[in-house]
């Protein structure tokens, strides 16, 4: 494209990256991070946030995003530029990491479907958090793929509602971020 503006990036591979972002837990910090993504046209596939160090009021935000290498580098630098951001680690490039997600899954129904739902839940190692004569609420922790698989199966046996936390992630080994 002939342009005074930057050309649209050539078809470089778009890869999924998981970023861990340590921030001051102060009002508006999440809006800053999320607003940066929408304002600069990056996408968020998953977002998890909670205070992890209460005394220092530090929160850990885990963001799963996708982009070319150049875009991911920009995202990292743009995040680091935010004043309350302490540190941004790209777990995907840093080495092996573990990613886990928690889902609450409600199924409703009677008869054979209900029995099958319970059997499948047990096969996946899901906990039963709530039961009535017409419903269950299961809790499943696992990789996103595992949860997707579980949800597909539950869809056959009366799935009515899902709540997922998004991904929490951590690098393997003794190193910390």
């Amino acid at each position: 494209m002939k342009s005074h503006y930057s050309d649209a990036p050539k078809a470089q591979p778009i890869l999924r990256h998981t970023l861990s972002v340590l921030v001051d837990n102060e009002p508006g910090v999440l809006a800053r991070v999320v607003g940066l993504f929408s304002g600069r046209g990056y996408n968020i596939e998953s977002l998890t946030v909670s205070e992890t160090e209460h005394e220092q009021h530090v929160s850990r935000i885990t963001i799963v995003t996708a982009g070319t290498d150049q875009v991911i580098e920009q995202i990292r630098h743009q995040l680091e530029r935010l004043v309350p951001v302490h540190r941004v680690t790209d777990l995907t490039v840093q080495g092996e990491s573990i990613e886990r997600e928690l889902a609450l899954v409600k199924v409703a129904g009677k008869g054979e479907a209900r029995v099958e739902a319970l059997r499948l839940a047990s096969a996946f190692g899901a906990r039963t958090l709530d039961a009535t004569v017409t419903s269950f609420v299961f809790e499943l922790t696992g990789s996103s793929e595992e949860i997707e698989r579980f949800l597909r199966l539950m869809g056959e046996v009366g799935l009515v509602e899902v709540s997922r936390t998004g991904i929490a992630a951590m690098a393997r080994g003794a190193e910390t971020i």
Partner: protein
Amino acid sequence: MTRQMTGAEMVVQALQDQGVEHIFGYPGGAVLPIYDALFHQDKVRHVLVRHEQGAVHAAEGYARSSGKVGCVLVTSGPGATNAVTGLTDALLDSIPLVCITGQVPTHLIGSDAFQECDTVGITRHCTKHNYLVKRIEDLPRILHEAFYVASNGRPGPVVIDIPKDVQFAKGQYARPMSNQHKTYRPQIKGDAGKIKAAIDLMATAKRPVFYTGGGVINSGPQASELLRELVALTGFPITSTLMGLGAYPAAGPQWLGMLGMHGTYEANLAMHDCDVMICIGARFDDRITGRLDAFSPKSKKIHVDIDPSSINKNVHVDIGIVGDCGHVLEDMVRLWRAQSPQVDKPALAEWWNRIDGWRARNCLAFRKDANVIKPQYAIQRLYELTKDRDVYITTEVGQHQMWAAQYFHFQEPNRWMTSGGLGTMGYGLPAAVGAQLAHPGSLVIDIAGEASVLMNMQEMSTALQHRLPIKVFILNNEYMGMVRQWQELLHGGRYSESYSAALPDFVKLAEAYGGHGIRCSDPADLDRAILEMIDTPKPVIFDCLVAKEENCFPMIPSGKAHNEMILPDFEGKTGDIIDARGRELV
């Protein structure tokens, strides 16, 4: 020593403790306690503007011409929203500002109270950082931290939103031992290994060029000194962005002029053909690079920037050095001296030969006219008649801004205040107010267009009230000239809404404000009229009637590369210059 005081008193005390002498603002319901605290002291002088946008631009002009942090005080709601354009302007051009906004009392926040708006929400993306102060205990720390954040790292605007009940609340004030943010530590020193690699690359260059920007100015006068030293040591040519003018003197032998869309032939061709580009404190903006896939295709690139996100953002560079320009330049000068490398003298001589060939093209030549003042001529005369004075120039945005950048030559940093990144029409007049306040004895001129200047004309009242003898030099061509030029080049000469109809009589307008008005349309009378302007000890509006349909050249048209620029003696049909794809762009 801690003292008990109200939030409003803390604001004024913190300003004093930070050494603030001037604050630009406009009172309103939600900041009355702070205005009351200002009333009880005389260390911080308040400059009443006529519109909050003017306050922010004035603070920008003040900051950029003095190297200090600019300060603004406005009320909630419309006070804050009117400041947004100025804040965005400061963010794009990296100007350090602290803007204090009043807010409705905390218990009313979120209730759509009178003059309430979500100030921190609205300004989140147009500030470097912002704060809503909900507890009096946090106020002293935040006030001081804001100055640290605004001026450290890549500078930028910081907003502190203070609800009215917090302004009334009492608390302990102590000036913190350090006003540093608890974790924000921008990298100042460049990586030694990378600086070494940069020097090694520079030493082997056959066709090098320095490309410098506003970062050198922001780093302080010392950085400009070091830049001059490095340029002299290496013997390399140097060009600069709009924001970087003055860091290297325009009279210097190695100066190529400004680069980019309206840059000089020699600067843009040197950028296109160079083999080593040394970018210091500039950011490869689209007005600089032109067509990106044809931007300096044969060069290795070194980029020094305090903001890591600027490196590899638009253009891939070979050596990216994160650090403050001044510190990195100091290391580069020291290393170059220590190594005193054997540069390729024949290659450099050949490179200078080619540059001299481009210079001989005389790309800024224009046809003079005995009957009509050419805008370029007006700037030339303004420069010649003021160059031996202590002069500060601000501009609005458009053709006049580019002509000022091309024909007014800057020998020192901090003398040139213009809206580069955001391109804000209406910047120049209030910025001149700010610059004049920072430099009371100096000659401060807003080079303006008749359309831009009307956007913040009300600040003439501010200039009069505070006895600031600014000069507003209007190149009046009765068009929004740059819009008209683009309509000529891109839209078949259909001048849709770009004619400045129903203009005021600027001479009478100046007099109505209590200033002095001058009109000139005769080239033979121009020098006399300019001298009259300079010698008038109060604000002047100079209505310089210039050729109406003059285009600003050289120009790299949309969709073209650096080596495809249009020069002033272009005789073809301007409507054919830009192809269909280029027409879609700005």
